[in-house]
């Protein structure tokens, strides 16, 4: 496959940007870096580990009529399962990003978007992940479990047994959704 390992999928696309949309896109990306709402909208589904967009102004040795939008996302796959959520919940963000690209089927509905992604997905190659079996939710949960655990370890040295047992129980309640 080249873009699957464990439960991870790497989705890469390289799509043309309409010339008139280029300036808006640059401003939009710049603003999104300092406007957390945009990033929260993208990451709200808890299945994307990392995602990047890059405007490709040119490639060595090539004379291209368009600028291209390089997109790469690393997420808990396969992508078909999640496109419905994207297509309906964050449709406006998707339309803002690709909506002025030639032939982009602005969602909703989801099916034309799935066809468009399938058409543009760059397959093959080599794919690596340091934690291929850990979903985004697992990673975020484990980080929280660890962060909350360190005070409990410190308390285990100082509290009386009954007080420690109570602290231990409180800890398990706090993190149980991540275990």
């Amino acid at each position: 496959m080249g873009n699957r390992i464990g439960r991870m999928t790497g989705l890469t696309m390289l799509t043309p940007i309409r010339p008139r949309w280029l300036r808006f896109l640059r401003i939009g990306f710049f603003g999104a870096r300092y406007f957390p709402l945009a990033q929260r909208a993208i990451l709200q589904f808890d299945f994307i580990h990392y995602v990047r967009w890059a405007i490709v102004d040119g490639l060595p040795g090539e004379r291209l009529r368009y600028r291209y939008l390089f997109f790469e996302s690393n997420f808990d796959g396969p992508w078909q399962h999640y496109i419905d959520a994207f297509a309906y919940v964050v449709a406006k963000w998707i339309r803002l990003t690709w909506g002025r690209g030639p032939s982009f089927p602005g969602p909703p509905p989801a099916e034309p978007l799935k066809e468009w992604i399938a058409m543009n997905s760059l397959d093959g190659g080599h794919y690596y992940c340091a934690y291929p079996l850990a979903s985004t939710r697992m990673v975020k949960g484990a980080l929280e479990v660890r962060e909350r655990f360190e005070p409990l370890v410190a308390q285990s040295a100082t509290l009386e047994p009954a007080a420690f047992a109570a602290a231990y129980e409180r800890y398990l309640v706090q993190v149980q959704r991540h275990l």
Partner: protein
Amino acid sequence: MAERANRIGGAYSLTVIAPIVAGREQAARDAIDALPVGQDSPLARLDGLHFSRIHVVSELVFQGPQQRWRDRLQASHLVFTSTIDGDPDRYLEALRSRAEPDTWWRFCVGYPGSADSEAFRRFVREHQIDSSLFASAHAKATVPGVLASLTLRERIIDFAIAARGLEPAELQRRFRDEFAE
């Protein structure tokens, strides 16, 4: 400013696109496809690497009649991406010295090889494309931090199952035996 856009939290997005020498496209594909996967991948030798992908792009997808002009690539291009902890130059040095990058980049135009550290770094940097936007669900987490957290989570689950019903003093003793340094 562009370099800053490659970062989010402690993570850095490296995107490198380099043209392949004419006639070497299939050899590049074969070399990439032959790389061992998972923990046997040469990329698994790099401590701070979250994700990486290496592949070849030979054509730009034509979007249909609404695309006024059709762009055709003169060469195939090798696309290399990494999501890493911290400093990209430190990562490139680790990549150069430990991950045998000649395996895939030796098919690219102008690639100087990995023997010369500075020439290698310059080649990669010259073909780097800065991210316009980079986002993550766990941007502050390092690879060692993620792996340690996942392992600890498993240990806590095992302990919680084994420690059910223990008296407080015994619970505390076993907890300290298991987790206190």
